[in-house]
């Protein structure tokens, strides 16, 4: 299973991807929507985990474009803001949304569900 993590908080992205890699999930990370589109164009990913709030292309916009490129792609949305309403427009397409700080066990559980 191959996962792409998109978050403008660079250290957060590095740490989370390391932890997922430790648990045997092959994870890449990028910091902008633009890089994410490039990576998805070059590689095949099963799941994209993306932050809703990012400079440039926003999380919601990025999710729409990614779905256009690969309708089979699964997305998980992350937010620092606790408002569930923020996801209404994009969440229909997403597998789920998680608020920061997140529990690694919950993320793993979701990833396993997608894989299984």
């Amino acid at each position, binding site marked *: 299973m191959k996962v792409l993590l998109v978050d403008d908080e660079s250290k957060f992205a590095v*740490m989370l991807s390391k932890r997922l890699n430790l648990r045997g999930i092959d994870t890449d990370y990028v910091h902008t929507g633009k890089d994410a589109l490039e990576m998805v164009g070059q590689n095949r990913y099963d799941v994209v985990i993306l932050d*809703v709030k990012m400079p440039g292309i926003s999380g919601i916009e990025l999710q729409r474009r990614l779905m256009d490129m690969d309708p089979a792609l699964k997305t998980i949305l992350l937010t620092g*803001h*606790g*408002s569930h309403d923020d996801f209404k427009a994009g969440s229909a397409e997403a597998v789920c949304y998680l*608020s920061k700080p997140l529990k690694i066990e919950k993320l793993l559980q979701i990833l396993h569900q997608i894989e299984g």
Partner: protein
Amino acid sequence: MIAKFRRALRAFQPKFYRSVSAHYNPYVTFTNYRRIWLIGIFLLIATALLPLLVVTAFHYQLIQNSIDSELILRTERVASNARRAVTFFLEEGLDALRFTVNEFGYGRLTDPDHLQEILRNLKLGFGGLTDLSVISQQGLQIAYAGPFKLEGRDYSDQQWFIQCRKQNLYISDIFRGYRDVPHVIIAVKAFRNDGSYFIFRATLETERLIQILDSYKSGAYADIFIVNRQGFIQTPSAHYGDIFEKMSLPLPSYSSRTEAVIYNDIGSGPIITGYAYISTQLAHTPFILMVVKQKQGMLGPWQELRSKITWFVGCGILIVILVMTLTCTYMVNRLYQADTAKAETMALMEQNNQLVSMGQLAAGVAHEINNPLALINETAGYIKDLFVIKHQYKDDKELLENIDAIIDAVDRCGTITKQLLGFTRKFDPKIQQVDLARLISEVLAFHKKEAEYRNIEVYVDVEGDISGLETDQGKLQQILVNLVNNAFQAMDDGCILEVRAAAEEADRVRLTISDNGCGMPEDTLPKIFEPFFTTKEKDQGTGLGLAITYGLVTKLHGKIAVESRENEGTTFVVTLPKQFKEEMRENESSSG
């Protein structure tokens, strides 16, 4: 027992009687309702009663005066009539003597038999005559007719004889004669053919005079009698002393006319005295006629009327006091209730303001804290991963416990921030169609009374074509309330507030709230939307009003601008989109 009574009394106490709760003090128009109530009652009662009392007093005075002058007139009339009768009685006596002297001459008068006959005839025609005597120029009694033997007596050194010689006529005081009957002496001087003169004298009984006086007496409170010029009583008086004793009233001053005066300081109550100094055509007499009436006794009908008037006025005063007190209590109670209701609403609004600002603060905190928390979480998680998954420090229990503590703390932080964010959700916009004109008038209604009290003119101008405004009514109301509140606090009495609403471009609405109040100095203008910035005194403002307003306007995707000049006034301009759109919110969220 006393406590019970007090409790019962308190049930009748109007609501405003206890002072306004300190909690509402900044919001109420008046604080001391008891004082307003007392002033109100005093003014109402004074206004109602003053004219009544003044008119009543005038009326009393008028009646009193007219009664006094009526009494004086009546007394004067009685005195005048009695005076004429007394004068006539004395003149009649004198005339009879002069007639007798002229008719009979000295020769026949000095003949004792003739004199006896004349006395008999005069008694028949005149009555009350005791004796007659003829006295020579030297004062010797020459002839006498009467019950006593007085011939040969010498009167030359007696007062009456000296006076009669001087004045040709003489009338004596009344005196008790030998038979203990009151008498008066009258005498005339007559000339003989040889130029010498003699005096012809008669003694009269006063029985007839007293009868005449009695016939003028009217009512139990009247007294009529004669005193001499020294104040000794000459005919019987009912109330003011025994005969031949000093009168208990002051001697009236001399007047040639009949007079009447009122004495108010006599022991037996006020009296009216009519008097006349009696004088005949030819000579003065020593007599003063007195007519005395007790005023109290003559006031019967008036006193009845006066007690009726007093009752009527008293009842009127009681009714006025009762009605005015009840009216005033009712009005002040209503005022108190309205004021308290207003204060409650404003206190609630202030509380809401604080809640909104707390929510905004919490949201800001949570937002900012979540990203670093997420980072701590992942970092700590990774360290733990290193230990657990790579098995290098698997058995170092203390290290693992510490790392777990970090993770627990972060977890707790996360819980708190989530709760804070949940709290702000209540303040998310609820979009609906808004009638701007009505909303403005509702908001201004809060200040209607204050504007009236403070003589502040409020102009509202809502352009007719503002329709289809869709936004959060509650938030817009809160924005208006805050700005109008601000304006009222900035304005002195007699200022002008203008609220205008107009369409701006196709899809925006512009609201202008301007006052000509105290304005703000230029250096404070950039700070006014900052939280906790206030120019008001301590405890008067939280410094959040405009910050909240700013937050609310932003939440409705509007803009707020301010223009102000010190001592000239302040204008706030709020522009809002006509239609509140969902995408705007997403853009706003994702760009934050």
